[in-house]
């Protein structure tokens, strides 16, 4: 079955740098330190990444950061809570735009 998403493509990620190696190296040189232990632990950063992966709905990122979270010592309880955070922000973002809807409605209503 044809699909836009192929799980095996995750391992081919580096191919997107083939025609722009300087940009790819710049990206990777930044990406690694982003996830290194700092003010946040690697585990906390992996949980944030998992939540964001769901918010941006990237199946590759969901695969990768589910594994990473487990390998960093997170459990399903923490991972599920992280996803609820993403869902709450997405839901809240939708709802807060309701003020715009209300403003517009008020402007054109009698």
């Amino acid at each position, binding site marked *: 079955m044809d699909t836009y998403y192929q799980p095996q493509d995750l391992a081919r990620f580096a191919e997107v740098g083939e025609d722009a190696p300087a940009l790819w190296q710049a990206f990777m040189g930044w990406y690694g330190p982003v996830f290194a*232990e700092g003010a946040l*632990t*690697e*585990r906390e950063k992996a949980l944030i990444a998992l939540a964001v992966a769901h918010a941006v709905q990237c199946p590759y990122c969901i695969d990768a950061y589910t*594994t990473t979270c*487990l*390998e*960093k*010592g997170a*459990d*399903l*309880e923490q991972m599920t809570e992280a996803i609820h955070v993403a869902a709450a922000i997405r839901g809240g973002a939708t709802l807060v735009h309701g003020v715009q809807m209300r403003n517009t409605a008020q402007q054109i209503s009698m």
Partner: protein
Amino acid sequence: MSAINFHPSLQHRSHPLASPVAQRHLLAELPLARSFEDAVASTGHAPLRSQTPTVLQMNVGKRCNQVCRHCHVDAGPDRREVMTPEVIAACLRLLATGAIGVVDITGGAPELHPQFREIVREARALGCHVIDRCNLTITQLPDYQDLPEFLAEHEVEVVASLPAYSLKQTEAQRGNGVFDASITALRQLNALGYGQPESGLVLNLVTNPVGAFLPPNQRSLEATWKREMMRRHGIVFNHLYTITNMPISRFLEFLLESGNLEAYMEKLVNAFNPAAIAGLMCRYTLSVGWDGRLYDCDFNQMLEMALPQTIFEVTLADLGDRPIQVAAHCFGCTAGAGSSCGGATAA
């Protein structure tokens, strides 16, 4: 508690993977990017050779009151192999030479062996440091409730296995009822002084990943575990060891049946860490099986990759600088931060 859970051992089910030969064959047939020998050679350590052993790991048998899904021994209540008195006597004779200072007793559940306490007493009398690899739930069985006091009396280091500080993950790997019994046992050990500052009674915990992935950073996870074990259960302990699941026996069965075998092996190979070579436990451990055969480690023991000598004829001169037998499963000890019976081996 009665903690017979999941299905019986591979051997009891007459599963093909009950055969060490079948396991070795399956692993050897996998299309890996490189062999373990080649990986070691790339670091300049080939062929891998041992030092004179400082640890005698006695696997006193395959009997266990649990049937954990990841068990590399295929241990369980239906296993009957137990170390013979003759082998125990030969081990004690080797220890009496004074050259090996640490006795690491494992199984199965080592405490089920009828001579377990005799081994502990004799080894302590010889001045050895004794480690008991305890599954914790054994202390809740009717005939073993005085075990914690015995271990404390003889200052035995307890290395206790617990996959997670939460019930769900622990019981996914070890079976129903295991978590509460383990927490009860840990509280009893704490009450005796185990894991408490200045007591001298060492309580270390061991965690294996609950699935086909690598263990977390040991130092980081230890801090989290210490906080959570105290917060959730009021338990203290000395150190947390993270151990990689080895692709043999019942974990191999899980990998095969879940479709994770090739990806897991690829992960281990890709995560090969040259810095883990120096701390490989096979380099300083002598593993002795229930029947007196000798091995470089407990994993080689389960794959029946034996040394030429047995405990009855071996001398320390035979053991130093000996070639270590390796195969694809050895990638489990060199992946990421490395893995040994004492946890991670590389920073």
